[in-house]
């Protein structure tokens, strides 16, 4: 087992033991914190497909996170008020079923990613960064100025949505759902990275010319990666909204986009577990530093600066050595 695999296994064990211990000692708050870390990690796992594997620095992933959140908010709010979303030409009702909500969240955020990607991928480099940021901001302003679903104030859902056979209001049971999804996403992205598609996408990051010269379209590869990436981040958004039982335009804000990137970089770019480590560290810092000082973002900023300037492999890079594993 390589050093990185050992570290990754340890992290997974941590994500099992910490909530287990919290459950046994009756510390629901710790479980909720771990749940939050796992959901944010999932958002980062999504972005990492575009950023780590594809080299696409998207500063607009809050759009997909928010769309996932609002998919949950809109469906659940219609279900709780028994007011159909659409009556003509056909009836669409709200739902409290998590599975349906996840599907809707992934489809809508995937479509948004497809549209944003199709436009943004016509450019590259800084243009791409600025354009994705701008499109993210577009959703932010839209969510504020569209009054039907709470506008600036957001939307509250009274009861968490349902999952067959589980009591989702019990923190540990909700955590199990989230953990399984995160593990599944990790498994799938690990397979994706090694697959022919992953090989081509990763090569396009290193040399677009090479990939074009062997007859593949970098645009097509990147657009698909961006869409998959948006779908997973969208799913994370739906879970995040369910965790808080609340959605608001904050999910769309550019800070959210920035933070999702920060998870990846704190943990280590292009590392499978980078976003998981990064999100866990972020939550830990927020909890510890946030308790010490109202201005904990200063310390986060300083830490981030140090990592970018001096430790570019992130935490996993420091622990496992800089070389990304090749098999």
């Amino acid at each position, binding site marked *: 087992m390589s050093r990185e695999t050992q570290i990754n296994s340890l992290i997974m064990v941590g994500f099992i033991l910490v909530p287990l211990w919290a459950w046994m000692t009756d510390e629901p708050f710790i479980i909720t914190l771990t749940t939050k870390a796992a959901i944010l990690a999932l958002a980062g796992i999504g972005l990492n497909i575009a950023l780590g594997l594809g080299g696409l620095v998207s500063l607009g992933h809050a759009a997909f996170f928010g769309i996932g959140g609002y998919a949950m908010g809109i469906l659940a709010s219609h279900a709780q008020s028994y007011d159909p979303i659409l009556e003509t030409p056909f009836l669409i009702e709200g739902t409290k079923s998590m599975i349906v909500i996840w599907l809707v969240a992934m489809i809508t955020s995937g479509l948004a990613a497809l549209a944003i990607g199709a436009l943004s991928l016509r450019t590259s480099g800084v243009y791409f960064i600025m354009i994705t940021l701008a499109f993210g901001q577009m959703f932010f302003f839209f969510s504020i100025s569209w009054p*039907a679903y709470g506008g600036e104030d957001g939307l509250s859902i009274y009861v968490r949505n349902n999952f067959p056979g589980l009591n989702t209001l019990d923190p540990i049971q909700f955590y199990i759902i989230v953990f399984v999804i995160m593990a599944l996403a990790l498994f799938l992205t690990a397979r994706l990275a090694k697959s022919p598609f992953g090989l081509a996408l990763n090569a396009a990051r290193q040399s677009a010319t090479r990939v074009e010269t062997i007859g593949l379209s970098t645009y097509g590869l990147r657009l698909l990666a961006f869409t998959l990436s948006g779908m997973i981040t969208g799913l994370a958004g739906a879970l995040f909204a369910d965790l808080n039982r609340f959605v608001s335009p904050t999910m769309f804000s550019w800070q959210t986009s920035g933070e999702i990137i920060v998870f990846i970089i704190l943990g280590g770019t292009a590392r499978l577990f980078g976003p998981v480590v990064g999100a866990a560290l972020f939550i830990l810092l927020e909890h510890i530093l946030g308790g010490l000082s109202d201005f904990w973002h200063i310390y986060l*900023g300083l830490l981030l600066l140090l990592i970018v*300037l001096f430790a570019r492999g992130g935490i996993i890079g420091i622990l496992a050595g800089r070389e990304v594993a090749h098999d």
Partner: protein
Amino acid sequence: MSLILLAEQVLNGLQLGVMLFLMAAGLTLVFGVMGLINLAHGSLFMVGAFAAAAVAGATGSFLLALAAALAAAAAAGALVELLIIRRLYDRDHLDQVLATFALILIFSEGTRWVFGSFPLYLSIPEYLSGPITLPGGIQYPLYRLTLIAVGLLIAVGLFLLISRTRLGIQIRAGENDREMIAALGVDISKLYTIVFALGAALAGLAGALVGAIQSVQVGMGEPVLILAFVVIVIGGIGSIKGALIGSILVGLTDTLAGVLLPLLFSQFMSTSAAASTGSALASMLIYILMAVVLIMKPTGLFGARA
């Protein structure tokens, strides 16, 4: 809608446009010359506004406040360039994004720490307050009119600086060929610091000028920064002319859409539905404009490079 109201909105759009230009010009220069994407440019806007509000509060002089905004933002810019930014020129864009994102966190929280979470207010000086009557009987706030004039003057000044002065020649050379200007004996790291500080000063000035018609608060810079990004995408990276035209386009589109779209929709909708649909669509319009430009010209209206 009356023509007078329309004229007023056009002036509002122009005013937003010229202020955006002050932001976009610095961003586009820094990108054109150093190849750096600077998210913390919005923080310099905020620094300018806070410096102005603090000095105006202490001295009561608006001009001193503006001078303080220029000086504080330029100094903050130069300091940040010397300490951090210059380590990023050779890095990839991802590192630049992250490091400057970290700077935003530090600047924002630092400002909150010093000034508290409550907004400050910077008032318009006596001699610039109140409306003025323009030809055609349009009543328009003198201060906003002054902003337009100041913005346009600075635009002219920048064009002269770039086209006529020694510094401008060096900047243009830096955009075209970095090795060349180093070979010509220009101290490139000094040039970079100057360009960065110049961009920072413009952003700080914009922050102070806008601060007098908004509240001065933490986080005020980022929405403007993102609008300035839209401007640059539309105008083309590295082009001052593109930044000016993009700024005016974005300023006018954003302002006029907010007024005209609800009116337009009220022709065939109830007033309240028209107001919400109109304003929601208006909030998206500049991004739609950006998308259209991207489809037609991926490098922006005046951009040469991808």
